[in-house]
Each structure stands twice: as structure tokens, then as C-alpha cells.
């Protein structure tokens, strides 16, 4: 993998565009730059109360007695709620109305624990008081008596008969079985069988903005919740928890200070809604950093075992994969995360004979749920480390071995789903490796290693969720454009991309477009800002709405200028004759005419993702996702065999994004996702001991700083074959997936031995150095 010359890209003809693709200043950038953007914790209201949450300090216990009278009696305390007051209310995250599926069998987390607690940090009571200090004082006056119950902290132990059970009948939260082709025949055909197990840790999202919201009851009796969320559709979950009609809850999203999946679950919404209803006053709840670590979801730890049959020439004949995931105390989105890991278990490779058996089990630990990549990164840590181990066993170059197995368009994943868009795995891998340049020589105690990871990741939600999005686009009488779309903007440029698409189609500069977003009551519902779906889903909805308006504008302009419709174009806030740009009508003038004549200047459009049925229950065969994004990361590391430190020397990330809508934003997604992946590999572990968090803040849980890694070399490819607007694919989650396995592979390349567990801490490195010495490799 030292000198790689990429082949030329396949020829792609992308239509020329005026706004889309350019690194324009995002519509949200300046407000954020000058500190004018208001986040959820920044709002205050008259007579507002402040809330705090009383939480479990036991991993598994029966609540014998809960006494809140002393807290209620404290002057300035307006309200204390316990599980008795919210009996039956669940913190479901199943997104009713989106999935159309019943809640999972009775094990959803209660809003407040009533009889038992199952993890440290589980909410037990809510307090609302005149000040934050009074609310904290009230927490100190709550009396609780526990009876400790036996606890379990490992998902494999949780499935052993006799283990403590969190919910009857057993701790299994979810299970999948994939049967593709003929595994036995494939294994029999193999010249060599390679087996390895890999472990991945709990990871904290570490968004900078702690969870926050303010709720109040308005003059119609509607409960309004202003909250940092990835899902304004949680208004339905709130309504269900409170037992009120869905049209009596309004979620007004704010600009989100980072989510990465954690703000996909309900966070403060239901607490606030209960407190606002109970007190009749506005209530604010802002988590501390420690609370945001303790009480919100984590990335699932996985143990993944690969047993792969391969021919001497490098062709994979069979793959048997087992996965065990830790669900923590409650399911949340675990069944879907496990499905993602399962469905992507074999990576961007064509393998005809596959068995995958995956299971997630409950433990008395912090619950796990969505985190950028949603199981895809864990799957990739399995298949990409295994690919390098097989290459090593075959004495093949890791890139050559991958080349022999990369899937092509039309090939199928392990669930038999055919990939319909471009598969540019090799294009990405060779460009990422090429960008590393010459190999740095090893010197003294510094051993140099290079690693590559080629991954794929879905974009768009599971296709049997019947996903939809809506957007409204209109032209005002001065030629400015308004977009209304319920999209939550979590910082990735969700709202900007929609504006840039509307600007392109309606022929106006980006600064002539204004977007109103993320309100469950007044902006058309656009679905969740999760699953790398907004550009694809809402981008297509905006594209459709804007195109409908454009058609009317063009028709009217053609009539006015006496030309055919197909000869009219829109740009620079004008409608003009394509071949005679001097013949034009200002868009403002055209809009005024349309308005006067009753021609509609706006459109509400809905985009429906492809709808499929679920997987075959016996074989796990069937379609899961709308499409996939392919990418690769290559890194070079220096391992210090004295200190155990790993220095990242070079890093290059290359992805086929289909079509970049804002090239600066795309680069930002890739660079930021890569950095999260590097942290995953090298430093991040949300550590628990007997269910108690030992990394409760940024002082103990370290994430990458500006001084840790050089900037990634970001390479953006555009195949134009995505199913988003203008051929775009999704990049938010795919950006994270390849970085961690690339680092793990680089480490193994440097020392000749592999650490089978992330992160690659100095302690583990030193152990590996000893192992390498024992094998005579150092």
C-alpha cells in the first residue's frame, strides 16, 4: 500500500448548476458567527420555573420507599412529580406515525421509575422550582430507600441462564438471522478459513450543547415545547405519554448544538410537558454536562466474530458472522441499530454465502441508542479489520485483496439487497491511499504503519418504515423565496442545503432565500434529522415543490416574452430567453404578474421513499435501505513502542457523495465525521464499572482537540448516481464509518500484531508491544 496510482474515474456527465455545488456561506453561518443564534437553553419566559431530575444512583434496585413531602414543602418549590403521578407514561422512541409499528413488548423505559430502577441515572422524580438552586435543594430533600437487586453488566453474561433479568422472560432485546447462499458449500470451497473477534466500546456523543428545553401551556391549552431535538415528530410521543390528543402538543425545535443521534431520542420533552401542565407555568430544564453524559444514550458496544472462507487467489467464498450488542437497561432504538449492523455486516464486498447471527441483550448500564452510523461503524470495525487479517494470512496487499472482492453495482448485500447506484469503493480507496504520499520511514522507537478501510453506509431510513417528508416553497412578490420545512437543523447544514436547492431551481442567489424550519405545528412535517435522510428526503421534497413553482413562472414568462417554455431559463432573479439573455423579465415583476392573475406562487410537496416489506423472517433476505454511500479512509500512524502513544501522521478521506450540494459543507461533514472516527479508535471510551460511570465529564472522557490530529485530506467524488436531489447521496453518517478501522489497521501494520479491542490506549499498545516482542516482530 505504498505507491498507489488511482485509475481515472468512470466518465460522468453532471449537468452544470449555478448555486448547487458551490461552497457558499451557509444561511445559518453568520447568525452563529456573531452569537445571534438562540439555542434551547437561551430562552426565558415570564414566571418561568426551573426543573431538575432526581435520578437513581443504583444500577439495579427495587424502590422500597420514595418520600417527596420534604421537597414539596420547601418554599419556592412549585411541583414534585414521581412515577405515581405519571403512571404508565413511557419514554418511547418508536416514532409513532413514522413507523406505524407497535411499541416493543412492554420494556420501553418509563418516564419516571416506579417500582424498580435498572441503571445509574434513571429518572425517578421531577422538581420544578423558582430557581435552579431551589430545585437542586429540593432534590437533596427527596428521601429514597432502595433494596439492591443483583445486576448484570455484560450482554453475554446477561444471556446465561440464571442471570439477573431486567424484563421477563429474558434479557434478549432483539435478534436477527441472515441466511444467504450456502455457507457450508462456501466454506468447503475455501483454501483457508480465518477467524477473529473484535470488541468496540461504549461511546459518548459529546455534543457541545447539553440537552435543554422550555415548555409552556399557551392560550389554546396547547403544550408548547421549545427543545433541542433531532425529531420534532416526538410531539406524538409526548401526547401519548400525557394522554392528550396529538394536536395539543407543539414541538418548536431550535438550532441544535450537535446531536449525532443522541437528540434523536426523547430527552427533556416529556418531563417538561408534565411539569408545565401540572404547574400551569413555563418550565425550563437544562442538563448539566454530567447529566448529559449520565442520562442519555451511548453508542452500542459490540463483540463481532468473523469466520471467513477464502481462496488462495483472494476470493471470499463464505462468511459467518456473529454479533453481540449491549442494549443497556432499556431498548430505545437498539432493535434498529442491531438491524443496521447486521444488514451491513459484510461491508462493500460481494459474498455469496453468508450467515449472520446477531443479538442484543439488556444490562444494568446506561442505555444505548442512535449514534451517527447507527451500528454501521461497529459492523465496519468487524469486516475491515477482518479484511486486513485475511490479506495478511494470504500474504496479499490489503488493497489488492479488497479489489478482488469489492461489490459492483447490481451486486447484493448480505440480505440480498441489490445496490443500484455507483459503487466507487476502489476509486475512493486508491485516492485516499494516493493522498498519503510517500511512506514515512520508521525511526528509533517510532514504528510507522499504514491502514485502509473501505466502507459503505446506508442513507435514508429503513424502507419498511414508509418514510415521507414534506416541504413548502413559495416566491414572494419581490422575487424573494421562502422555504417552510419541518427539518431540524442539527448543524450539518440541513436547512442550508434546502435553501441552496430552492435557489438553484428558482434562479435566485442564496441570500434571497429564507427558511422557516423545525416546528411541528406550522412547518410541513419533514421527518427526523437522522439516518442521513434530510438531504435525500426533504431535499427531494423541496426540489419537487420548487420545480412546480418554477414551471408556472416559466410558463408565464414564456407567454410574456412570446417564446416557447423550453427556451426560458431562470437565473440571477430573472426569467430570460436562454439563447438571448438580454431578453428577460425580473423575477419580482413576474411574481407580481402571477399574483395579480391568481397564478399560484407556492407549492406544498411530499416525497415518499421507496416502500418495501420487511425481511423474510427465516432467511433475513430482503431490502432494508433506499441506497448506500461508499467511501474510504487511509491513515499513517507512528506507534511509540516505549510510551505506547500513537501519533496520527497523515489521514485522507475520500467519499462518493453523488453530488455535492454545498462543497464546503460536504467537506465539513467528511472532516468532522473522520475526526469522530479517529477519537473512536484512539481515545474515546465511556467507561462504566459495576454500572457506575467513571468518565462523567470532559475531564475524564476525552474527545479530540485541535492539537491532537492533523487536518484530514478530504477528497470528494461525485458519481451523480444518488437518489437525492441532483444525484446526491447522503454523507452525514457515512463520513464517520471508515476512520476507526483504518487506524486499527494502521496500528496492526506498524507492529505486526493487532489489538482486538478499541480504543487503542497506551496500556493496550504496551501489551501489544510485548506480544510483538514475544513473536520476534520487534
Amino acid at each position: 500500500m505504498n505507491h498507489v496510482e488511482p485509475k481515472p474515474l468512470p466518465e460522468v456527465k453532471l449537468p452544470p448548476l449555478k448555486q448547487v455545488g458551490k461552497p457558499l456561506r451557509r444561511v445559518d453561518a453568520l447568525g452563529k458567527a456573531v452569537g445571534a443564534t438562540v439555542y434551547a437553553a437561551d430562552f426565558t419566559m415570564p414566571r418561568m420555573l426551573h426543573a431538575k431530575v432526581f435520578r437513581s444512583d443504583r444500577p439495579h434496585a427495587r424502590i422500597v420507599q420514595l418520600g417527596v413531602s420534604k421537597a414539596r414543602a420547601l418554599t419556592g418549590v412549585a411541583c414534585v412529580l414521581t412515577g405515581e403521578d405519571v403512571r404508565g407514561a413511557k419514554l418511547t422512541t418508536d416514532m409513532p406515525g413514522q413507523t406505524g409499528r407497535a411499541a416493543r413488548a412492554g420494556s420501553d423505559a418509563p418516564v419516571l421509575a416506579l417500582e424498580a430502577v435498572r441503571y445509574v441515572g434513571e429518572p425517578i422524580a421531577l422538581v420544578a422550582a423558582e430557581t435552579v438552586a431551589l430545585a437542586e435543594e429540593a432534590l437533596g430533600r427527596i428521601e429514597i430507600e432502595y433494596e439492591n437487586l443483583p445486576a448484570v453488566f455484560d450482554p453475554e453474561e446477561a444471556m446465561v441462564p440464571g442471570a439477573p433479568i431486567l424484563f421477563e422472560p429474558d434479557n434478549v432485546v432483539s435478534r436477527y438471522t441472515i441466511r444467504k447462499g450456502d455457507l457450508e458449500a462456501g466454506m468447503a470451497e475455501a483454501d483457508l478459513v480465518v477467524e477473529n473477534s473484535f470488541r468496540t466500546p461504549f461511546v459518548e456523543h459529546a455534543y457541545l450543547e447539553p440537552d435543554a428545553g422550555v415548555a409552556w401551556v399557551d392560550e389554546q391549552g396547547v403544550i408548547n415545547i421549545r427543545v433541542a431535538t433531532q425529531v420534532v415528530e416526538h410531539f406524538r410521543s409526548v401526547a401519548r405519554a400525557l394522554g392528550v390528543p396529538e394536536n395539543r402538543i407543539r414541538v418548536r425545535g431550535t438550532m441544535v448544538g450537535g446531536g449525532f443521534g443522541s437528540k434523536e431520542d426523547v430527552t427533556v420533552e416529556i418531563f417538561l410537558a408534565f411539569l408545565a401542565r401540572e404547574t400551569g407555568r413555563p418550565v425550563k430544564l437544562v442538563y448539566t454536562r454530567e447529566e448529559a453524559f449520565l442520562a442519555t444514550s451511548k453508542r452500542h458496544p459490540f463483540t463481532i466474530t468473523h469466520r471467513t472462507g477464502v481462496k488462495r487467489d483472494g476470493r471470499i467464498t463464505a462468511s459467518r458472522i456473529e454479533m453481540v450488542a449491549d442494549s443497556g437497561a432499556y431498548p430505545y432504538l437498539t432493535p434498529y441499530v442491531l438491524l443496521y449492523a447486521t444488514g451491513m455486516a459484510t461491508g462493500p464486498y460481494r459474498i455469496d454465502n453468508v450467515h449472520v447471527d446477531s443479538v442484543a441483550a439488556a444490562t444494568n448500564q446506561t442505555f444505548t441508542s442512535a449514534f451517527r452510523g447507527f451500528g454501521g461503524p461497529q459492523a465496519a470495525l468487524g469486516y475491515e479489520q477482518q479484511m486486513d487479517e485475511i490479506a495478511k494470512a494470504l500474504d496479499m496487499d490489503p488493497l489488492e485483496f479488497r479489489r478482488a472482492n469489492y461489490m459492483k453495482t447490481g451486486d447484493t448485500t448480505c440480505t440480498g439487497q441489490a445496490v443500484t447506484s455507483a459503487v466507487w469503493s476502489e476509486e475512493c480507496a486508491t485516492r485516499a491511499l494516493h493522498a498519503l504520499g510517500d511512506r514515512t520511514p520508521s525511526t528509533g522507537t517510532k514504528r510507522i504503519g499504514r491502514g485502509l478501510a473501505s466502507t459503505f453506509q446506508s442513507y435514508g431510513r429503513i424502507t419498511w418504515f414508509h418514510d415521507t417528508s414534506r416541504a413548502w416553497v413559495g416566491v414572494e412578490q419581490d422575487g424573494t423565496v421562502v422555504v417552510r420545512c419541518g427539518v431540524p437543523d442539527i448543524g450539518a447544514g440541513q436547512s442550508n442545503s434546502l435553501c441552496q436547492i430552492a435557489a438553484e431551481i428558482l434562479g435566485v442567489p442564496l441570500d434571497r432565500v429564507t427558511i422557516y424550519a423545525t416546528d411541528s405545528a406550522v412547518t410541513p412535517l419533514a421527518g427526523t434529522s437522522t439516518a442521513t435522510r434530510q438531504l435525500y428526503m426533504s431535499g427531494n421534497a423541496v426540489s419537487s415543490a420548487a420545480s412546480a413553482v418554477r414551471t408556472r413562472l416559466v410558463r408565464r414568462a414564456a407567454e410574456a416574452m412570446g417564446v416557447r417554455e423550453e427556451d426560458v431559463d431562470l437565473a440571477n432573479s430573472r426569467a430570460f430567453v436562454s439563447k438571448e439573455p438580454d431578453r428577460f423579465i425580473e423575477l419580482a415583476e413576474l411574481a407580481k404578474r402571477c399574483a395579480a392573475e391568481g397564478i399560484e406562487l407556492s407549492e406544498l410537496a411530499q416525497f415518499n421513499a421507496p416502500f418495501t416489506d420487511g425481511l423474510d423472517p427465516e432467511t433475513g433476505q430482503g431490502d432494508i435501505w433506499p441506497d448506500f454511500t461508499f467511501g474510504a479512509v487511509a491513515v499513517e500512524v507512528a506507534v511509540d513502542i516505549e510510551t505506547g502513544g500513537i501519533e496520527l501522521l497523515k489521514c485522507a478521506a475520500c467519499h462518493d457523495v453523488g453530488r455535492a450540494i454545498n462543497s464546503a459543507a460536504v467537506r465539513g461533514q467528511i472532516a468532522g465525521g473522520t475526526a469522530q472516527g479517529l477519537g473512536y479508535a484512539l481515545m474515546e471510551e465511556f467507561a462504566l464499572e459495576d454500572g457506575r460511570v467513571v468518565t462523567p465529564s470532559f475531564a475524564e472522557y476525552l474527545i479530540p482537540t485541535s492539537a491532537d490530529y492533523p487536518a484530514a485530506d478530504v477528497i470528494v467524488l461525485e458519481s451523480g448516481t444518488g437518489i437525492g436531489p441532483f444525484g446526491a447521496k447522503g454523507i452525514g453518517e457515512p463520513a464517520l464509518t471508515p476512520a476507526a478501522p483504518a487506524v486499527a489497521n494502521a496500528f496492526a501494520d506498524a507492529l505486526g500484531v493487532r489489538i482486538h479491542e478499541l480504543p487503542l490506549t497506551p496500556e493496550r499498545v504496551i501489551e501489544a508491544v510485548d506480544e510483538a516482542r514475544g513473536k520476534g516482530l520487534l
Partner: protein
Amino acid sequence: MEARPVTLRVNGRTHDVALAPNTTLLEALRDLGYTDVKSGCEKGDCGACAVLLDGVAVNSCLVLAWQAEGAEIVTNSGLGTIEKPHPIQEAFADTGAIQCGFCTSGMIVATKALLDGNPDPTEDEIREALSGNLCRCTGYGQIVEAVRVAAELLRRSSSSPASSLAEATSASEDGREHDHEDRVLGSGDGAEAGDDT
């Protein structure tokens, strides 16, 4: 704890407030409406609450409000506005350095402090200066680029000596209460900068 009177000068404006002695500068500033100062950890780990205290970038969560009495406090929103952004703010907006934006105000404050003392920093110096400000979105590459661009913009207009905080402060010291628009502190803003001297 008993509240006591404290006078804070923030972005050229004077506030007389009564605060408990254990009130942090972060809490005091946010209560006064300076919500551009973000609370990310309240223990000095993340840098989201950074402000300039007499020109030095500090984590306002680690300073008690009364300790800031007599000092010139400048927050990110004191550097520029949407109508008239500071060159550093423009550079951040134009380079893709802003994603979720929650770390941005602290980053820009740290950048201001860096460039006031070192108008032409190397990449290593930039990375070192920002290493107390966490960002989870960008991977820092575009932020480093923003600082470089900002340094270039400021150097181009550096014929004016008015970009230091102290000088800009003395220009607006006439009176107890300033209009909110009167936020000229530390503005090294291009053509305008010369007028401040």
C-alpha cells in the same frame, strides 16, 4: 448566600447588578442576556463560555462574577453584529468553520485573543491556541483555516493600530450606560478600524 452589588462592564455597556458571591461570570453574563456565551460544561473543560477579560481569553465558568469587576469584558457578540460582523466572524462564516455553532462564540473569542498578540500565527500556534475549545462537528480543519483567513484579513487592514482591546475600550469609556449598538470594542473591522483611534 447574600447578594451584593457588582458592576460589570460588558461589550462597552455597564451593568449594576446584585449577585450572590458564588455566581460565576458565565451565569451573570447569561442572566444579563449575553446568551452568545455558551454553557457547555461549567468546569473549564470545553471553552464554549470563553470571553475576553481585559483582552485575555478566559473560561467565564471558572471566574466568579465579582472577580470581573473593573475589567473590560468582551463576548463574541460584542465583536460584531449581523449587519457589521467582525472579520474573524466573517472568516468563520465563509470557510465552513461553523456547523452546529455552539462552540463558535468561544472559538472566535480564543481567535481574537490569539490574533491580538500574534497577527501571523503558524498552524501549530493556531492549534495550540484553540486547544482549550472543544468542537465535535468539524474536526477543526476548517476552523484552523478560518483563523488563517481572519489573520490575513486583519493584517490587510492593520495599517490601523486600533485593533487592540485597550485602545478600543478607551474610545467608549464616556458614560455608564451605552447603547447596545455601541459595541465597538476590539473591532478590527476593515475600513472602520481607523476611525477608532
